[in-house]
């Protein structure tokens, strides 16, 4: 018995405090607006304190596991360059990497260079796009804290996520607290202009 399953797997990687869980909430709400089944997985507590943080989101039909299996990510959002190396194991030749050109240093350790990282990622998939999201947000909006929202919005405008930008916008309005909403809406619009 062959059953057809249609599903989309997004992995978001970065370091603690880059807002992965907020991005996950926005994506999950947007997927719910579109009537999808959804499963997500995140980590809290010690694992968040500036260490590596990877969160998983899967939506579509017949979704069981909250974790993406190795080699099964459709889209990898990288909020930090080094952390993308960990995400490689989830990639296949069709996986899209959308990466914030941004480094978070590790005390007493030498980081891999941009060139070295890209060389490794391209062994897994040729679809690697580097975006200077942190710089663009810093320049245009005065802060890079919204780099993740920028990247996520850009992904929806570029149709790298099978969710309508309108659903993402609606989810941003639902999830982001009043105090920060204006900044996030500006970020969303900036991504629309740049896409």
């Amino acid at each position, binding site marked *: 018995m062959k059953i057809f399953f249609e599903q989309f797997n997004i992995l978001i990687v970065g*370091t603690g405090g880059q807002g992965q869980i907020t991005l996950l909430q926005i994506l999950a709400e947007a997927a719910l607006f579109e009537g999808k089944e*959804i499963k997500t*997985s995140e980590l809290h*507590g010690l694992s*968040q*304190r500036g*260490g590596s943080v990877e969160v998983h989101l899967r939506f579509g039909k017949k979704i069981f596991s*909250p974790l993406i299996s*190795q080699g099964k990510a459709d889209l990898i959002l990288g909020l930090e360059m080094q952390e993308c190396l960990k995400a490689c194991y989830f990639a296949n030749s069709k996986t899209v990497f959308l990466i914030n050109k941004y480094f978070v240093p590790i005390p007493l350790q030498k*980081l891999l260079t941009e060139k070295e990282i890209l060389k490794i990622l391209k062994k897994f998939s040729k679809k690697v796009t580097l975006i200077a999201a942190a710089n663009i947000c810093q320049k245009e909006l005065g802060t890079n804290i919204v780099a993740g929202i920028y990247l996520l919005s850009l992904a929806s405008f570029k149709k790298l996520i099978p969710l309508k930008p309108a659903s993402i916008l609606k989810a941003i309005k639902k999830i982001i607290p009043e105090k920060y909403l204006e900044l996030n809406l500006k970020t969303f619009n900036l991504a629309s202009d740049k896409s």
Partner: protein
Amino acid sequence: MEEILLNKPGKKIILLGNEAIVRGALEAGVNFVSTYPGTPASEIGDTFSKIAKKARVYFEYSTNEKVALEAGIGASFSGLKTLVAMKDFGLNVCLDALLPFLYTGTKGPTVIVVADDPSCHSSAQSEENTRGLALLAHIPTLEPSDPQECKDFVKLSFQISEKFKIPVMIRITTRVAHQKMPVILGKIQSSKSKSQKGKFVKEPKRFVTMPPRVLEMKKELLEKIEKIKEFSEKNKINSIFRGSASESLGIITSGISYLYVMEALKELNLDLPVLKLGFFYPLPEKKIKNFINPPTGGFKKVLVVEELDPYLEREIERLAKNINPKLQIFGKDLIPEVGELKPENVISAIAKFTNTKYQIPNTKYQIPIPKRFPQLCPGCPYWLVFSAVKKAVDTKKVIFGGDIGCYMLFGLPPLNIQDYLFCMGSSVGIAHGIKKVTGQKLITFIGDSTFFHAGIPALINTVFNKSNPLIIILDNQTTAMTGHQPHPGAPKDKNPIKIEDIVKACGVKNLKVIDPINQKEFTNTVKEFLNKKEVSVIVARRPCKFVR
């Protein structure tokens, strides 16, 4: 209004596993909730903390898990519907109260939620499996797989507790607690019908566990368990999914592992029968026997998919002996016993079990990934403590005791000052032992919330039995690691119990309260106190930057 309080039965909202537990309790009409925070269970208490007033539920962060359970027992004995939540290590602290609670049973229905953390994402000390404690305590235990089941199983647990007058445990794991999905809401009991007011009616025969009555109580408990086993046999949370009747292979699983099994069968395009067990204890033995030995002829092989220790596998081996002695049982020979399961572990186990060809993608690559350790936040007052201590002593010569909290990051680079780390409060108890038998200098760190939780008896022991460690109590005015919950020294209403008052009352003579921003004073005090003949305490008081 918070979405979790929406009273719209049938509506779907996205909930975290832990939030779904809260919602289930609200739909069951819970009156009394107590907890001590600990990842991955913290959001249960945090969510109640936000909504308790509106939902007309009594909620408290207790000083530790044992006290939280005891408070819950008191509420139950007074007739209230009660929920107590904690992480796995919390249940260890509770055990002394838990075991007799099974003997007395409940009056108000009571559910205890315990969250394990396979792979120790946010747990030092050990990779625990609470299933072992469920067996020890004879507590009926349910294991949900996802947030929808978290909500439904909590409601069912309250029903079981009400029917059989026994506390019921929900065991979750990190990937259930921190999993989100759209959950279908049920009806929240109207707040008018609920009351926080209970009444304790004297029934010593029921609530006093003294011999010879205690042995009668044990008999009564085991009789209850037999009845609950019958209930478990008939309940649909133990069910068979998929599979054609002609198969001679089957899979038995539960909790998060069930989701990976279903995913694996999809991936491998297989259609094997799967027995999903919602009950861990007591197990529906007849249902399991019928599964491995169906009327169409006994299975040849069965695969048990479970995380950590093979508790189910052992039970199934026992059950198969009489009914299907030729059955080959696979489990831990194909599935790791250490660390949480990942979907690919289960896919590869089922592939081997069924002789299906499958190669996990990307296993041939070895990528040089720089290791990123968790760090104290920029601006954390503990950096100041570290820097003052480093100036005061030769860190190679002094022994450093660690305890549970953000400051256990002292053990990681670039700080590297931590020579032992155990459980809540243990830094002081172990320090005493080392000081009694060596002449070495020793400094222990213990956080404010941890001090209240389990540090005080150990401090008293250093005075009573005369040893002289230097104890630095890191008072950042919050329970920071788990999400900034209040504690007795930093309550919401700003009437703190002062740590220095407790330390003084314990008989400690060498005591100073210092803001570590005053580096010179801190450094000099460390030097001075390390030479004292009696125990000494520095309360390093400077609030966490997130509560300032």
